[in-house]
């Protein structure tokens, strides 16, 4: 547990790697790498950065020790890393390269410039770089320098860059440590996130600060099986998981026993409380923590520790997001940007040292998202609809854009989905959307199933929902499309029926 609030995540990694140099730092595809191996590779890669003016380095996302060492080398030499994904369309990667002015791309043998088509970048194959040793002086960095830039989907189709500074990252790190994890160099942690996704930053870096060992899972077929295989056979004590992975694995919860799991982080998307209850039977010693945060607020900015017994707070079956991290101010804002104090719903705004300064070279989007409220503080508008209960826990209700008005009624699509899932005994995912038809908003419900008695579902919904919330049409779609972060792609589902 951290004892002060001035810790530097990279200093702590260097210190831990010296103290625990012979210990396993990472296990990737069954191969064990010590702290000495990892840092040696990072030093070897860092030696190739010979242009001090080159600040941003591109790294191809792979599940390899060289990839992780490349991230460390970039961070420890004061540079900024940007992940390029081999599964992205070349146009997207090229767009990111052009936006950030990347000249150097680090990759392993498997991928080369071919994944981008022709492009004027320098490619370094890190598989061929030898490890280096010796006491290097890593670059002293400025807190305003960026650690990484994550690109999220922009509504216009152009990827939107979220630059996270060292100040943001360290503010996150100190607050995250102070959540009070009981973890040390004997622990084993899971890193299952795509490197394009910011939860990978904490899943990769945090274990290295305490001298622990992390097990990675790449982007492979049947990742959900691999994740639970590793959790059980490698006696993992900390795992952050997504709701999608839990849903896919749920038929097998009874087949695994995970007594070594001390913590399960519920991350990346809204988690169903019933799913947690089911998993908790297989992980009897685990404390479940819902960790929420937009990329713009540096990984996570609120946490809700689920009670072992009793009621799990939430809304429409979705687990609450809890209290803000220390130094984060959260408020529920009304349509005029004023703080809501009576417990009703509004948009969640967050402020504090974890919040990015602004989108990469995008002042227009920045001014929409980063605003100064009447209390004089600068807030990031999350776009998430929440309310605060009388114990100051924040309850997540859905995305702002998941609320629609029909016949003057404000409707939460999540409520329709919840009713449908409930009627179907939580056996299927459901996504609702509204689309204008002949000038009127019409509700559609999509069920993730091949077969479903839609008539009886419609009848069941009539008992659960007011008339104005009834879907006009029920569609069946299996499987639901997902994005590269394994989240259900709501936009793609809607487009299936509206284009």
């Amino acid at each position, binding site marked *: 547990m951290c004892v002060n609030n001035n810790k530097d995540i990279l200093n702590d990694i260097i210190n831990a790697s010296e103290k625990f140099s012979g210990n396993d730092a990472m296990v990737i595809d069954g191969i064990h790498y010590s702290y000495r191996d990892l840092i040696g590779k990072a030093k070897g890669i860092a030696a190739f950065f010979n242009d001090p003016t080159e600040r941003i380095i591109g790294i191809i996302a792979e599940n390899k020790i060289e990839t992780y060492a490349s991230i460390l080398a970039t961070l420890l030499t004061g540079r900024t890393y940007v992940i390029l994904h081999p599964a992205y369309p070349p146009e997207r990667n090229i767009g990111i390269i052009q936006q950030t002015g990347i000249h150097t791309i680090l990759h392993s043998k498997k991928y080369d410039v071919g994944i981008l088509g022709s492009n004027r970048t320098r490619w370094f194959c890190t598989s061929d770089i030898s490890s280096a040793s010796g006491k290097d002086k890593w670059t002293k960095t400025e807190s305003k320098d960026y650690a990484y830039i994550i690109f999220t989907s922009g509504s216009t189709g152009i990827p939107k860059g979220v630059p996270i500074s060292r100040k943001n990252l360290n503010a996150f790190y100190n607050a995250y440590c102070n959540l009070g994890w009981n973890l040390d160099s004997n622990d084993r942690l899971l890193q299952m996130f795509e490197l394009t996704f910011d939860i990978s930053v904490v899943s990769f870096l945090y274990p290295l600060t305490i001298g622990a060992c992390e097990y990675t899972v790449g982007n*492979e*077929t049947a990742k959900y099986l691999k994740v639970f295989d590793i959790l059980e056979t490698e006696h993992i004590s900390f795992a952050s998981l997504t709701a999608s992975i839990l849903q*896919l694995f749920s038929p*097998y919860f009874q087949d*695994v026993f995970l007594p070594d799991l001390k913590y399960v982080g519920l991350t990346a998307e809204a988690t169903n409380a019933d799913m947690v209850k089911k998993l908790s039977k297989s992980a009897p010693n685990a404390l479940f923590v819902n960790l929420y945060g937009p990329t713009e607020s540096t990984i996570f900015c609120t946490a809700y520790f689920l009670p072992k017994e009793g009621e799990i707070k939430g809304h429409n079956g979705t687990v609450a997001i809890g209290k803000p991290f220390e130094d984060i101010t959260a408020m529920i804002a009304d349509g005029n940007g004023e703080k809501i104090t009576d417990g009703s719903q509004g948009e969640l705004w967050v402020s504090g040292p974890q919040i990015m300064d602004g989108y990469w070279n995008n002042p227009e989007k920045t001014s929409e998202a980063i605003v100064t409220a009447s209390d004089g503080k600068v807030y990031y508008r999350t776009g998430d609809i929440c309310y605060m209960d009388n114990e100051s826990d924040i309850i997540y209700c859905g995305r702002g854009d998941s609320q629609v008005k029909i016949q003057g009624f404000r409707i939460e699509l999540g409520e329709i989905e919840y009713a449908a899932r409930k009627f179907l005994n939580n056996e299927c995912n459901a996504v609702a959307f509204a689309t204008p038809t002949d000038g009127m908003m019409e509700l559609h419900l999509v069920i993730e199933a091949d077969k479903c008695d839609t008539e009886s579902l419609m009848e069941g919904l009539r008992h659960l929902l007011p008339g104005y919330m009834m879907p006009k049409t029920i569609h069946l779609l299996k*499987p639901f499309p997902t994005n590269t972060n394994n989240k259900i792609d709501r936009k793609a589902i809607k487009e299936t029926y509206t284009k």
Partner: protein
Amino acid sequence: MYTIEIQKELGGILGKVLKKEDIELDQNTKASDVPGWDSLTNMLFINEIEKHYKIRFSFREIVKITNVGELCSAILSKLGK
């Protein structure tokens, strides 16, 4: 029932899951060889296999399977053949 019959049936089931024509499989085919065979479709494929043959695999049985040949053997063994 023989391995070759099961293999052919699996090609049909996988094709249905992937919303394509029957897929030609051989004993060495791995998920990564078939476009679209990912985490989600893998789960659906196993569901369909379980329904088709009226069997149930445990997690440990599934996780050991690395190619179509091993999948056929696992099905045959469940069917007691």
